[in-house]
């Protein structure tokens, strides 16, 4: 078996947003290529282009040195390309064996040969034998399985087509170490069989364990490629970080925010646990803009939802000095908490209803029975002025607004209630640059007025530019707390990848002279060894672990 795939100068746009501007990747038989990049650098888009889920806008794909065009996943699959998707491609209501063999069910006389399906499923499941809690039964419904077993099924599904090229897109994210070990043994055997593997991962340790070569994406551009053994973790992180950071939008606004050590504590959380959260502690003062960072899906969303009473949790939450346990969002709202949810179209807005109605939704009670529509309109137009909402009129549906203006409405609907604590779930996702700047000014103003804000963002620049303090989440806990000097982009990325406070400090891109080995000499290192740039002997500021 031999295969080689090259992506040359791939371009992909989504509307006005450029996801990939010049992406390149080469992968050949018998090797593992790590595709690396920060959040939103285009890794997933590139892998989706290779497997035909997304069609490229420019550039070229070469398979075995011949140009190919994948117009759908079917074409790519026929060419022997299989993918283990980060967001699993399993049908929840179907069984394990039905999922694994979907579209390639062994047939006998035109009908699906169930006996054969079952047999071959058992063979595949045996590859991961002993690494899962319940025996993976071919007839189990996928919906009922825990995340790690779903992930295993996803791997087996890709494997079942005996592909030549396998893309592992964050395939290890929900596996435990034993399962990862088994997967890597499989990867090693695939290499021997002459299969090619593209390994998309955030986990540096794993990348160094199995990858032969790397390719780094930054803002949709391939900025470096080479052999793993010729590069250090620190240099890799350096490649991922942009050297001249474009902070033109996010002006260092945090100077505007006043120091707030003497403000009273608005929110205190201790040992908060949900399915995803494994004990989160934090403290938030009035007038503070506290950032939450980390890779996607490390529990940030759960944290915000739990604090808003939208998710069952255990642990103690103290709001304004009063111990609370919210079971419903309504209770949280009554205590002056507001949430700007992650999916504004689905969770934050009544899309087809008017701006007025959306702004008034949480506050109708203020306007009496029967409603004083005139007064409500007055209040709504005041809010929309404050938000600098660009609209045709309050009666227009929210769907007529641009993404950024729609997001302003989500915040605006809470402003009428004067929230004491604002929870933001990646609020600037899909918002244009100009509106972002207005949005930041709004946040700064709210902070000045004493609102406490908990701000999760997938955009590192934002966290760096706006926040005094950033909590980096990893695998359901707050892995490190960055503030002051330690709040740098490279520290943020390193911490996202699982490094703890102790091993962070200096910006690796500017510290080329430091030797990598110095990390070992770092006696103050307490917790899990940080993968990314260490080499600084300053004592850790404070660990949240």
């Amino acid at each position, binding site marked *: 078996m031999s295969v080689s795939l090259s992506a040359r100068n791939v371009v992909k746009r989504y509307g006005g947003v450029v996801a990939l501007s010049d992406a390149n990747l080469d992968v050949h038989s018998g090797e593992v290529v790590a595709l690396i990049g920060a959040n939103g650098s285009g890794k997933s888009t590139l892998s989706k282009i290779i*497997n035909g*889920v997304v069609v490229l806008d420019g550039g070229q794909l070469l398979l075995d040195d011949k140009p190919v065009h994948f117009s*759908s*996943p*079917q074409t*790519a*699959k026929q060419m022997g390309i299989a*993918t283990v*998707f980060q967001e*699993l*491609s*399993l*049908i*929840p*209501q*179907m069984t394990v064996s*039905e999922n694994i063999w*979907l*579209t390639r*069910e062994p*047939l006998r006389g*035109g*009908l*699906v040969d*169930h006996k054969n399906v079952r047999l071959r499923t058992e063979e595949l499941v045996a590859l991961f034998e002993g690494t899962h*809690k*319940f025996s993976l039964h071919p*007839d*189990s*419904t996928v*919906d*009922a399985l*825990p995340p790690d077993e779903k992930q295993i099924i996803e791997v087996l*599904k890709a494997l079942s087509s005996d592909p030549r090229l396998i893309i592992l897109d964050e395939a290890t994210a929900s596996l435990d170490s034993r399962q990862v070990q088994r997967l890597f043994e499989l990867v090693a055997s695939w290499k021997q069989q002459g299969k090619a593997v593209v390994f998309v991962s955030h986990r540096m340790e794993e990348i160094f364990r199995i990858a032969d070569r790397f390719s780094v994406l930054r803002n949709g551009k391939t900025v470096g490629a080479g052999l793993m053994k010729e590069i250090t973790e620190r240099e890799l992180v350096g490649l991922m970080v942009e050297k001249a950071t474009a902070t033109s939008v996010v002006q260092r606004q945090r100077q505007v925010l006043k120091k707030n050590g003497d403000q009273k504590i608005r929110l205190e959380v201790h040992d908060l646990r*949900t*399915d995803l959260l494994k004990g989160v502690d934090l403290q938030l003062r009035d007038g503070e803009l506290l950032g939450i960072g980390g890779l996607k899906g490390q529990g940030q969303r759960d944290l915000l939802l739990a604090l808003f009473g*939208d*998710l*069952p949790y255990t642990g103690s939450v103290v709001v304004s000095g009063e111990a609370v346990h919210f079971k*419903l969002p309504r209770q949280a709202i009554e205590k002056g908490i507001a949430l700007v949810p992650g999916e504004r179209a689905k969770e934050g807005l009544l899309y087809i209803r008017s701006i007025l109605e959306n702004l008034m939704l949480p506050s109708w009670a203020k306007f009496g029975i029967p409603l004083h529509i005139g007064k409500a309109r007055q209040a709504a137009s005041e809010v929309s002025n404050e938000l600098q909402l660009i609209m045709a009129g309050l009666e227009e549906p929210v769907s007529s607004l641009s993404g950024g203006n729609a997001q302003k409405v989500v915040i605006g609907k809470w402003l009428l209630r004067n929230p004491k604590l604002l929870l933001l779930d990646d609020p600037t996702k899909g918002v244009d640059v100009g509106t972002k700047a207005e949005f930041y000014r709004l946040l700064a103003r709210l902070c000045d007025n004493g609102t406490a804000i908990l701000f999760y963002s997938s955009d590192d620049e934002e966290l760096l530019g706006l926040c005094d303090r950033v909590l980096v989440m990893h695998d359901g806990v707050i892995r490190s707390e960055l503030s002051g000097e330690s709040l740098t982009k490279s520290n943020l990325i390193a911490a996202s990848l699982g490094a703890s406070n102790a091993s962070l400090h200096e910006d690796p891109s500017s510290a080329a002279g430091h030797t990598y080995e110095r990390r070992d000499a770092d006696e103050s290192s307490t917790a899990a060894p940080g993968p990314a740039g260490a080499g600084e002997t300053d004592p850790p500021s404070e660990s949240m672990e």
Partner: protein
Amino acid sequence: MNNVLNRMRWQYFTLRNPYLFSLLLLVLAMLVNLFFQPDLLSRGSLNSNMRVFLPLVLVTAGQAVVILGGGIDISVGSIVSIVNAILATQLGSNASPEKIALMLGAVLLVGMAAGAINGFFISYLRLQPIITTYATSFLYAGVALFILPSPGGAVPNGISSFYRETTPLGLPLTLYVIPLILIAWYLLRQTRYGGYLYAVGGKADAAYETAVPVNAVQFSTYVISGLMAAFGGIAITLLTGSGSATIGADITLTSITAVVIGGTALRGGVGGVAGAVLGAITLGLFKNIISFANVNLWWQTFVNAAIIVVALAAPGAINLLRRTIGSRTRQHPTTGQERQA
């Protein structure tokens, strides 16, 4: 852990036996019906019942395929009407056997064409199924009215009585159609297409990423539904022996109700045609019971609706009961996902 195991068992159970509830309901309906009509299972009443139920059973089978694939077809009733109108106007009482065969073939094609129009709008132009088929239902109803402006027309007596009175091996002809539908469904389920159907209805994005031809599958469900509606139209024409352009109007929502009672989830991906067929028969029995129970005419609609509401609510009620008893699992208020408390 216990909790997870419990969940697995329950889900396994309900997913593996989606027909269980509809079967129970059918037996219950039959027992009540037997009480009011002791000769329910005699050859005569079986025949008279089955030939009345059959049109709905046929239409429901097609509707179930669409709903399984994640869509819905509001236009089936109008397709039934078109078929009825065509047959009643084109055949007359003295059509030759060749003409009969030709026209039957033609109406099946018409049904499939109507389904293909729905399918094209929905799967290739990505329009909402409920809106699209609602709109085309008026279009098709209009066509039916155009063909047959006022009730009338006829079909040859011969085929009509063949439908009504033939009893091979002592059982009504119409009763044989049901095993045929079930066998066809069973075979379909054993093909790859059967798997695609559940995959597309279950999670279309994932199915697409797995290289399932999602558009083609969606399209095909509407063609199947159109075909089954045409069969239903033929059955209803043979039953009544005459034509009316509004004859199918009531059948649409009844077929959707039958599908749901039969254990198929309206969101798609769970259930099957067999349950839907049981559901259609159950609904027919409900109607029987009411007419035999000597309820006032104006109560009939009310009682019928009440029975349907109770039947629809029962699985939900069972679930609620289960959750309340099994207090160790808690339901997430908005996503409905179970989480460990």
